[in-house]
């Protein structure tokens, strides 16, 4: 399979295609797509009388997304797990004056995120097919632009390009929340944009500083990795990057925008907000660029402790939420703590675990937000006290909700377990006490998850109107089955994914721990030594 794809030269153009195809698709959908739903059987009146003619914009969007997903699968097949470093690289001139290039590539950390994103989008669109009924062409085009931004974030090696993709995610998301969201949408969208923008600007400044320090010739990650910096420079720049990514990924205490945004957004918006682009960027850029800052005792302790606080905080607050969507958002905040913990514990297991959680979270949380959306589609609400006893009325929905919730709380056999277990077992090797505190999260998780299940599915059928609720059927059932299979498959046999991320994660751990070592040595030989030395001693003690 791989060879036949290679013989097509696919590895030469697959990544640009992944980024540009949705943009092209956005233009097509916007220009050709039918903006409104076809009127229901009003004779044979030409649709032009109501708006522009042409095919249903949703169908066009879906078509573009399915092709995008096929590209994603092709990238998976092309990837060689035995090869370290970037694969499927393209490197085109872009802004020669600045030295910025259209430089794309994937490794074992970005590949799973890329494939997840491209496969998730068409599924999410299918599952929410009838939930958006107005301005379909704009909706489809914005979704496609958003996809392009997401993919761009995962494949960019040039930091300027990355920044562009990062912002490209923001704008469509703002409009998706602001136009198709629920009652409080404007406020939620604005809060989201302002906070994220604030972080982005800091990051832009840091990128500019890096660029200048590197001789103002290149924005390429590989080049910027060569820039040598003192500890204090690293700390400042790392701070800027970290803040940007922490806000984006809703790390406590920058988390309050997420429950609001996911609550007000249309379902597909909530799904995309659940994708862990922030922590991906952290692993890809902030960690390897500033190893001495990452390994700095105080910085690292603060972040690790924040991660554990996030785990417990998110889970505890999830216990008292009145709406299913808010339970899910706070559960995400708790999961984010596990990811951060894994990233900064910096062992092979913890980093691979963190990436696994990013992937699993994308699958499981998407399934859950879609399910919450189905509830809302059927009854107009997802307040937990508006339900009860649904297991008898909608058993297929009940099975899917139960399975997804079990995955959230990391039941062994589901995908959720793999990530959490790897993060914790890896973290324990360097930070035993924090790992133990973090593990209490599994107890609190079972409390919020089972409470939500209980309120929705079990006990008496208190609200009579729910008795007539439709169960999952057709497309929605098919889409949820795909999610269910993915959850079990990744839970029982995750090693196709683990195998692909092994080299990249190992290299990252080595780079950060080793990089911190270098700075420490440099500092020790200079006049102001000392701070980095303990980081070096940690680096020395941990085997892969």
């Amino acid at each position, binding site marked *: 399979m791989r060879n036949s794809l290679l013989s097509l030269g696919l590895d030469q153009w697959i990544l640009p295609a992944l980024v540009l195809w949705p943009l092209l698709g956005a233009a097509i959908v916007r220009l050709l797509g039918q903006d409104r739903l076809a009127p229901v059987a009003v004779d044979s009146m030409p649709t032009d009388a109501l708006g522009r003619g042409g095919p249903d914009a949703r169908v066009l969007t879906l078509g573009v997304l399915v092709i995008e997903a096929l590209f994603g699968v092709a990238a998976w097949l092309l990837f060689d797990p035995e090869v370290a470093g970037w694969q499927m690289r393209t490197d085109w001139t872009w802004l020669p004056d600045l030295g910025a290039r259209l430089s794309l590539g994937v490794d074992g950390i970005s590949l799973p995120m890329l494939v997840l994103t491209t496969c998730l989008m068409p599924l999410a669109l299918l599952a929410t097919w009838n939930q958006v009924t107005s301005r379909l062409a704009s909706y489809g085009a914005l979704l496609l632009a958003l996809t392009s931004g997401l993919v761009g974030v995962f494949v960019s090696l040039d930091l300027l390009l990355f920044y562009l993709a990062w912002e490209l995610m923001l*704008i*469509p998301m703002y*409009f998706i929340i*602001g*136009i198709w969201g629920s009652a409080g949408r404007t*406020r939620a969208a*604005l*809060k989201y944009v*302002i906070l994220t923008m604030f972080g982005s600007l800091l990051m832009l400044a840091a990128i500019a500083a890096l660029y200048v320090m590197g001789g103002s010739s290149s924005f390429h990650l590989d080049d910027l990795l060569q820039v040598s910096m003192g500890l204090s420079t690293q700390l400042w720049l790392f701070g800027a990057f970290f803040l940007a990514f922490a806000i984006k990924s809703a790390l406590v*205490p920058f*988390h*309050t925008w997420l429950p*609001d945004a996911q609550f007000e957004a249309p379902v597909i918006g909530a799904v995309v907000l659940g994708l862990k682009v922030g922590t991906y960027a952290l692993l890809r850029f902030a960690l390897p660029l500033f190893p001495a800052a990452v390994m700095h005792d105080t910085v690292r302790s603060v972040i690790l402790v924040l991660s554990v606080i996030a785990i417990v*905080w998110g889970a*505890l*607050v999830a*216990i*008292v939420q009145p709406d299913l969507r808010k339970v899910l958002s706070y559960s995400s905040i708790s999961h984010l703590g596990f990811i951060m913990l894994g990233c900064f514990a910096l062992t*092979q*297991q913890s980093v*691979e*675990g963190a990436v696994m959680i990013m992937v699993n979270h994308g699958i499981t949380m998407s399934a859950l937000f879609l399910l919450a959306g189905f509830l809302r589609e059927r009854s107009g609400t997802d307040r937990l006290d508006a339900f009860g006893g649904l*297991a008898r009325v909608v*058993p*297929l929905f009940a*099975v899917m909700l139960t399975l997804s919730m079990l995955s959230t709380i990391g*039941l*062994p*056999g589901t995908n959720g377990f793999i990530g959490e*277990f*790897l993060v*914790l077992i890896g973290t*324990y*090797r360097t930070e*035993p006490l924090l*790992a*133990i505190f973090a*593990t*209490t999260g*599994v*107890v609190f998780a*079972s*409390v919020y998850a*089972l409470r939500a299940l209980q309120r929705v*599915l*079990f*006990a*008496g*059928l208190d609200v009579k109107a729910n008795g007539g609720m439709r*169960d999952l059927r057709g497309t929605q*059932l098919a889409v949820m089955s795909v999610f269910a299979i993915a959850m079990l498959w990744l839970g*029982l*046999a*995750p*090693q196709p994914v*683990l*195998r692909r991320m*092994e080299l990249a994660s190992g290299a990252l751990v080595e780079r950060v721990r080793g990089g911190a070592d270098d700075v420490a040595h440099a500092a020790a030989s200079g006049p102001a030594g000392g701070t980095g030395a303990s980081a070096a001693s940690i680096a020395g003690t941990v*085997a*892969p």
Partner: protein
Amino acid sequence: MTANLQFVAAHPLDGTIAEWVWLLPMLPLLGAFINGALVLWPRLFPEAGILDSREARDAAIAARLNGTRSVTSMVGPGVMLVAFGLAVAVFFAMLGAGELPAPFIRTYASWMPVGSLVIDWGLHLDQLSMLMALVITGVGFLIHVFSVGYMAKDAGYARYFAFLNLFVAAMLVLVLGSSYAVMFVGWEGVGLASYLLIGFWFSEKANADAGKKAFIVNRIGDFGFLVAMFLLFSTTGALDYVGAHAGMSTAAPAVFTAVALFLFLGCAGKSAQIPLYIWLPDAMAGPTPVSALIHAATMVTAGVYLVARAAPIFSGAPDVSLFIALIGAVTALFAATIALRQWDIKKVLAYSTISQLGYMFIGAGTGAYAAGVFHLVTHAFFKALLFLGAGAVIHAMHAAYHHAHQDDQDAQDLRNMGGLRRYLPVTSATMWIATLAIAGVPPLAGFFSKDEILASVFTRAQGSTLSSASVLGVPGTTLLYVIYMMGIITALLTAIYMTRMMLLAFSGDNRTGERAVGALHEAPSSMTIPMIVLAALTVVGGWLNLPELLPLGPTHLLSSWLDPVTGEATRELGGSTHLDHSTELVLVGAAVAVALLGIGIAFARYRVRVPTKDDALPETGLAALLANAYRVDAGLERTVVRPLHSFSSRVLWQGIDQRIDRAFVSGGDLLTRVAGQAHDALGGGDVGRYAWVIAVGVLAVLAAFTLR
């Protein structure tokens, strides 16, 4: 890494039926799939045209489910019978192979290979897992057969068997898994099945709550299990039994203590020991055969299995072992006192189970792993029988009340029973056998296993590693004598509360009520036959491990069978101390006397009239305290659950999160106004158009740069 080394040497079980051990968990899993498919099939593929009316749809689905009922009756117990047959065949293969040089380990696939962490899907067949597999499939099969009768009229028939099969599959993974990680899969898997089955009749909120409580309390234990695994991995670099135990041999004593303590937290959760026992009484909300299989015979004994499995670790931590024995003794006594004043027949048995599990931990804690496992096996026989008998009673009571249109009456309350012996003779006779066994009357199974545990405590009180260990400064010798005394008192209480339960249910005048009493009848043969088989096992179970004192046949069969697995650890903790026969005779005599005394006390005390539940006066004083199980649940609600809830709600959420949020919002309001004015200045229009202006603008700027 270590996993590969084991394949170097040829194993006597290579190429025998033991190669099929993977089928053991797969068979019930297959049953769960088939039954699950039967449940979901009519929903996935409804007949055309019935979707319009909910009533019509539900009726059609119920009819289709009814049509497949016979398939479920075949598949559910069928897979268990095949699995039991296979287990027996593997057992004979093991007997035939003679001395096994090492456990028989098969690895099927890689699960989580990450760096130095190697976790495989593998099974570990040795004397201990073999014994457990026999009990699980054997007793499990009987309970599946019983369920065919018990659940016959239930609308969720196929769903019930799907969950029950799933439970057995998870339980077999738990005992057969080749590493702590795979065991954990089964460990949480049985927890899930237990959750689903406790809340099987989920339309009642109380049942769903009980399931939830069981899962959450078990998760506290699982937290300990997880941390123990992290410790093991960071110390030894392995999680499979062979590798981890080998790696631990060079570990520091503190590591042994820590691993053992965290593992025991897991055991306390699963096996309902203080302080995590609180979920088990509530778990009685599930169908009674579930209580027999999961909450008496198998799942709750997983903690005992874990201690025996990890014997090399526990024996390296004598202080922790002593602590475990102490917790076991306290739990045994504590639960026995509560059982004295319970009126719900299942609650009596639930507290009795907690108490007996405490006994098993006394054995496992004092390093008498084989004795603990022996009691596990005999308890599986007689407690499963007691629960099935209680099920037959409840089944009959329920049908009678239903017949008399008195569905509001409590079919489980002992005060509503009385004189049932006349209507349920088989149930009464078999349950009496089990009662005498659990009370410790020779020569029934419970007598031998309980006696062996108590004897081993007494033996180790002098001159063993344990006697020189200590808990919180109290020396081992003192503690072991205290534990022994607690065991004896518990035995007395056990005889009392069990006899009380039997007398209240089966003797005296009937209190069921005139209208209902006529409809009382013995259970169908699908239910009585499993009870008779279990009664027979209860009678002969003691022969599994006869003491030298009573050589009624070959002695110490079970101890010597388990010796390759736990023998070394036992000797490490117990030393070579031995009781002389005269002391042993005195101890045995005392134990039997205590049992008979207890039965006598109960006969003297409970041959009086009791009022029916509706006529009963509220209890006061100590009786009320015991009847309310020392009010622990209410106390925990007040001191843990509600404070945590209000902390999460008032402090974290409303206090901090929403305040941060309000700050943003007030800042955001300002920006909204500004943005709104800018928006108007641009000529209003819709937001969508605005989006395109921005997008085109960005692209234009970029293009300008690029094309320059």
